[in-house]
């Protein structure tokens, strides 16, 4: 179900979505932009994968969704983090940091 052409590192999309939503509820496009902006354009999000990921995360219970008026007075589907979503973000962040620092140490040792 995941698009293999995504420019993201496999398995990080979920974490990035959760991170993006940790500040405030957003709609799909907003999340995509946020990820691009914060990563300074390093990560480009495939909309198909993104919208599918929303379905998955919502089913698992990490996201809630709601149709709301945007500031441009259009209806859009806004996603927000649930309590267990927030917990999941913490877990993934810790895991990621541990792995990242391990890889960093490995690279340093070799260099």
């Amino acid at each position, binding site marked *: 179900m995941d698009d293999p052409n995504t420019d993201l590192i496999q398995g990080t999309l979920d974490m990035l979505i959760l991170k993006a939503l940790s500040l405030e509820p957003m709609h*799909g*496009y907003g999340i995509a932009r946020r990820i691009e902006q914060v990563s300074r354009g390093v990560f480009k999000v495939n*909309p*198909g994968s993104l*919208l599918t990921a929303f379905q998955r995360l919502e*089913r*698992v*219970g990490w996201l809630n969704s709601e149709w709301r008026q945007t500031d441009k007075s*259009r209806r859009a589907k806004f996603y927000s983090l649930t309590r267990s979503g927030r917990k999941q973000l913490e877990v993934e962040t810790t895991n990621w940091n541990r792995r990242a620092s391990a890889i960093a140490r490995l690279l340093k040792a070799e260099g």
Partner: protein
Amino acid sequence: MSLWRQFVRGLRVLGNRKAADQEIADEVSHYLDEATAGFVSKGLPPDEARRAARLELRGMTTVREQVRGYGWENGVDILFADLRYAARRLIGDPGFTAVSILTLALGIGASTAIFSVVDAVLLRALPYPNPQEIVRVWEQSPKGRRMNLAELNFDDFRTQNNTFASLAAYDYRLSSVSGGSEPVRVNIADVSSGFFKAFGVEPSRGRAFAAEEQRLHGAPAAIVSYSYWQRYLGGATDLSKFHLRMDGAVYSVVGVMPESFDFPPGTAAWIPRELSAQGLSRTGHNWRGLGRLRDGITVAQARANLSTIARRIKERYGKDVDLNDAAVVPLADAMVGDVRTALLTLLGAVGLLLLVACANVAGLLLARTSARRKELAVRAALGAGRGRLIQQFLAESFSLSLAGGGLGILTATWAVRVLPAILPANLPRQQDVAINTSVLLFALAATVAVAASLGLFAAWRAAAGDLQEALTDGSRSYSGTGASQRFRGFLVIGEIAITLVILIGAGLLGRSFLRLTDTSPGFSQQNLITMEFSLPTPQWPERLDQSGIVRQVHLVQDIMTRLRANPGARSVGLAGAMPVAAGDDLPEGDFIILNGQKPPANYAEFGRIAQNPSQAGHALYCVASEAYFSTMGIPVIRGRMFGEQDDWNSPHVAVISESLARQRWPNQNPIGQLIDFGNMDGDLKPLTIVGIAGDVRARGLDSPPSPIIYVDYRQRGMNANSSPTILMRSAAPAGEIVSAARGIFHDLAPDVPVKFSTFADEMGGWLADRRFLLLLVGLFAAAALALAAVGIYGVVAFSVTRRTQEIGIRMALGAQRSDVLRLIVGEGARLAVLGVAIGVAASFVITRLLSSLLFGVSATDPITFAGVAVLLSLVALLASYIPARRAMRLDPNTALRYE
């Protein structure tokens, strides 16, 4: 939690697929708008911004489909689509669908019905607490023969074992019971104190036996069965007013057993064994043994324990005892006994029938599949995965099988309601036969197994070979490859082989049955009316005294005189049991030949003389009246039968059967010999042999003629060892005679329960289990034969269609109609020959399992084998002749153009 969420969300989508799709579409189009706006704000003109946004999304439809594809509900959607498609296809081919569903319903229905019997009789646990701990117990002779327990041996088993929580002795007999709403002839059981404890069941009303009811000359008490209580005691709550008269004593009713308690089967009342004096024998095997094992003790341990005790008895008493071992068998196994083989045979036959049914449907599916290969090739080319294609086949086979299985279960429900009418009376636990959860589970499992194997088989055959080839095949009327036709051939060969096995089984059983009914019992069976009755008799060892015998003789003579006066009555006789049909009621035992010695004064002396093999013999004991032999048509071989002069005061006489004379007095004249058989009737007065009568298969048609000693009822009376039966030969219709006889009994002996019947009916009952087995196996064989015929017809007819062009060419080149006929029939014949050959080979192995059910034919009876092979071949030829005739009549002109 999240599983629940998955489930609910999925259901919501399934509930309103449209709304869900709309929501996804809205979200995607909003995304597109926002992306466009984003590009515009970066300075792109609106048109280009929109194009850039679309590019980023890589197609809105694709995204929508991608998002929509997430979730388990999509699998359900596909499944439904497949099922709808399968249903449409099945409805579109009603002939195929109807034949397949009916075939499967036949197979599954028959299997389910038979399984319900097997479940009730063999599989279901007995309705007692921890039934696996309840066992039957026997003494065992050095030759390995199981014997009932002798009183003193039982006492030793009971007091010395350390493996039984309870060990009991019991016995049952037919007896007249009065004191209820009417006198009846029913089974009553004498049970020792541990009996109910061994079952772990107590009376549901009233109480168990008290201590003072379980000792010699104690207060006579009886516990009655639920059905006796309902039927003859009106289901009354107050039991204290009921007193039952049985065998001359009066018993107060103290309890009623629960409805589910039925042991020994058919018992109406239980009385304490301890009330009457026990013999002190170690060789009189009068008691059946039953017990409950202690917690954690295995059957093997219990047996080892009793074996040790038995060996101890043997060591101590040596030649005075005939046991040296013991046998312990779980009660459930012991009850089922010989029925097991018959039921397993039925289950095997019905299983084979199900296989034939499946093979038939598989053949039909195969024909359809090969016609579908092109469609499959197109679907595969369009990207349908293997899994999806298999699912499509499974959807079809499941639709078929579920319909067939459902119809089959309905059939089985009906069959279970009809079955009691044909189930043999001696089948234990048949009242439990029902469609219950485990039977339904069996039906479901069978259905699913059939569905899965048919679906996978069809998918496998469809995917076999190169699908590309199917696509490029030019002919529009593509009708199957040679390979699939060959495969259908294999299926039909298998079908024929299996059918042959069932047919041979049915043939062997049928021939056994004919042999059996052809066997002469040793007398003429026509126009024989039977009246079984019981007289109050003292229990062994108390003997009938002279006045008791005189009373009996008076009554019986009065009855027989009046019966003889009936118009149409030719002659009337009396015997101690109806031979053959109720031959098991005749007791057997050792007698002694006096050889000039003076008769024994007591049983100890009798027993000592019986130790000497030159003075001992073994025979059945049967009381008879003067006219018994002439009434039955048993010939006089030598000497004389009983006569007027043989009354109580004259020397007691005996008539022996020819086989006993041959066995015991080979090349001698037994007439005039003095013998003693007093252990049977409690009278040690010796008997003089005065005549030899023709042989009778008293124990049953399937047993060799029994050695019998007949004694005169006027001299010996009828004690508990006799089940007196009046036999009457009459030219008048049985119904008239019976109603006249009923009146006579009512006048002369209103308290005596009688069972009126005809010998033919009683023999029918005796043959019932064999007839039942034969009937069902025959039915299954006929069904399998019909299916096999349809299978052969299908293959040959299909082949004719496929070879139409070829036939046209042959005819155009000058082939005669007979050549075409030979060509097509030859195809069917080849299948038949192969199938029959395989079937015969398989039968040689399989029919051996039937040996114990056969009589007078061997398991490899050449006549049956040959007959069945010929029958099946003829059916195969006939089934291929029909399509062959069509081929023969083809117009070569049309055939050549046939596509």
